[in-house]
């Protein structure tokens, strides 16, 4: 009896990421898993993305283009109209994946039929391609009930879109990419709603390289203030969902989620001050008070406010307060009800 090798669709939405596309597409083509289709959907890039992508048409990459920039509705076109696979992976056009990611993730889901999505661990990749290596989020590879993972998404995303491979069947069941919050609908929101209907798999080995810095989506939405608003709205949406369906452990983390978000806003405020965007900084500091009234007693908040009032940013302090990498705790124990797995044994 032949072992199943279901079709995996690797979707690449692109807008003006031509300088990263070679690395991205080549990493997908280098996947050890054979039965895959690769679809790139461009949003009328003004750089030479289409020329770069077209080089790979001979390798079977389906290069497509929208009539105008439809922003994150691109994910819907990719997943609902262009992709045919039983499993789906949404890449960032500036990200890359290691060769065994798809093979390992599919092996887990073929072995555990209740697991609906799998995360692979990641390193960050700078503009110049050098890596920022981080400890993995969890301390082992495992599968776990989706319900036990849900509360985690109140306070963190765990994985970027390119780190997740998921079953189309559960993806369709939850209604696909949620458009009402289209900011994190390809990671945090997706993982949360998937977890309500299926189990979760996690690969502790590094499987992905996620680009950071530069003029990417997150940086842009931090600057134009969409990011904080959407992060807050997502927490509210999760709370509403948890209230509707009785996920008490999700609700129990509501205050913690808001406090953490307030602390994140201090980092963004610092970034704004460093760029002498004082109004932006003040908006973040004001917003932080909405999330956590106690933030006004936080020494960092007070210092940042003083920098704003005096129009004198302390760059050293701001950098020290940037907790993006250094101070984040990792190597967490797996969630309740987990079963450890060993990739080679599947």
């Amino acid at each position, binding site marked *: 009896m032949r072992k199943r090798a279901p079709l995996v669709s690797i979707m690449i939405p692109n807008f003006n990421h031509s300088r990263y596309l070679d690395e991205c597409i080549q990493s997908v083509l280098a996947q050890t898993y054979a039965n895959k289709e690769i679809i790139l959907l461009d949003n009328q890039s003004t750089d030479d993305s289409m020329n770069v992508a077209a080089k790979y048409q001979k390798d079977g990459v389906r290069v497509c283009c929208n009539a*105008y*920039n439809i*922003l994150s*509705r691109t994910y*819907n076109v990719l997943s609902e109209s262009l992709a045919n696979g039983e499993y789906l992976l949404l890449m960032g056009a500036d990200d890359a994946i290691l060769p065994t990611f798809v093979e390992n993730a599919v092996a887990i889901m073929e072995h555990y039929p209740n697991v609906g999505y799998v995360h692979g661990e990641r390193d960050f990749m700078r503009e110049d391609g050098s890596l920022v290596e981080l400890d993995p989020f969890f301390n082992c590879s495992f599968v776990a009930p989706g319900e036990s993972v849900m509360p985690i998404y109140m306070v963190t995303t765990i994985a970027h879109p390119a780190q997740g491979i998921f079953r189309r069947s559960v993806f369709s069941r939850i*209604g696909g990419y*949620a*458009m*009402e919050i*289209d900011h994190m609908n390809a990671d945090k929101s997706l993982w949360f709603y998937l977890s309500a209907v299926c189990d979760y798999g996690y690969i502790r080995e590094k499987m992905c390289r996620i680009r950071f810095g530069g003029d990417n989506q997150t940086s842009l939405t931090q600057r*134009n*203030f*969409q990011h904080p*608003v*959407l992060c*807050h*709205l997502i927490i*509210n*949406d999760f709370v*509403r*969902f948890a209230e*509707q369906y009785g996920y008490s452990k999700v609700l129990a983390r509501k205050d913690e989620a808001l406090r953490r978000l307030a602390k994140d806003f201090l980092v963004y405020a610092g970034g704004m001050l460093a760029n002498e965007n004082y*109004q932006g900084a*003040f*908006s973040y500091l*004001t*917003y932080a*008070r*909405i999330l956590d*009234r106690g933030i006004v007693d936080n020494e960092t908040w007070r210092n940042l406010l003083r920098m704003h009032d005096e129009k004198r940013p302390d760059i050293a302090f701001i950098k020290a307060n940037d907790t993006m990498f250094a101070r984040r705790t990792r190597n967490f124990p797996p969630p309740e009800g987990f079963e450890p797995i060993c990739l080679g044994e599947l």
Partner: protein
Amino acid sequence: MNYSIVNVFVPMYNNCDVLDETIESIRALDYDPEKIFLFLTDFGSTDGTLEKAFTYRGEQTAILSLAGRRIGRTMIADMITATQFQDVGGRRMVLWPGDVLYPHCFKVAENYLYRTNRAGVRCSWLAAEVDVRDARGVVRRQMPLFTKSCYFRARSTDSSEYVRKGWRHAVLTYAGTYSAERGKISTQVNQSYWWQNLTYHGMVQENLSYLNESLGCFRERYYGNELDEILFRFEMGLTIFRMSGEVPEVHVTDKGFEANYRSQLSMYAVWRAFLLLEMVKRKEAEDCLLIARVINPDIASDECWLRMERFLERNEASDQTWLQEWFAREEPSDIPKWPIGGSLTNAWQRLRQRFGRAALSKWGNQ
């Protein structure tokens, strides 16, 4: 005149106590009942709403249970998706439980759309005035936004009309092209009946017409989480600002658009803060006041913001009275840019149809 079929969508979630008046108002419409299709869609109510809906079963009335679907902004899109195989064409509108239509609603709306078409203006949406009923049952007639019925051109700087005024103005939306896309456009429009939301539609859809006559009576909206609603409106605005910059051929705004949007929304947030404080919801009121400043930092020098801040701190009657009087004011109706029925409108439209849009776009769009 050949009146159109109208499909009325009523999303339901624990609305047992107010469902009757809504459905009764639909049954009481002065309109051919064979041209009304009613879609009652329940999202897992636990208070007997679905059972009550069943008492209204009958011809051309669909009753669907979408238990298991998320409550919130995806409800409209989920309703449209679930009913797509019963789509007989015609107009669509969404009516929330507790809101009622006046008996003349559909006939007046249809006559008006017919008139606009005859004037050479093709409109895919109609926004009409509504009366508003507060929690005590007192009905208030809103000051119409404009002195005359009029229209707004799609993909033009007319979109700014939606954000110049009307920060708390409720409207009834009729006809529009609701879709199954679970996006900002289709999901937000009906939950808030909020004039400014129509910016999005006016920017990307066809022309939108406005009727300065009241076609129904809607309940004053409380969303349960007022800050959440403000945040969603703020995020929509941020999206529009961004898209105007990135896709200017589709999303057209004028120079004052962003400033007006922020100003209007921040005023709405201050108003919500005041209402919440009157409901003794102090923290929620503070949240709304703070977010007003985030949306529009300039509001912190406005008298009403300063009064509200002081009222929160000191709870003085003088500030309360000032704020009550301030929020009780009605903005006067404006003279519309493109009234319907005037000879100028007809002449302009005839010219457009004759010479084509491209040739006149530079002249017409200011």
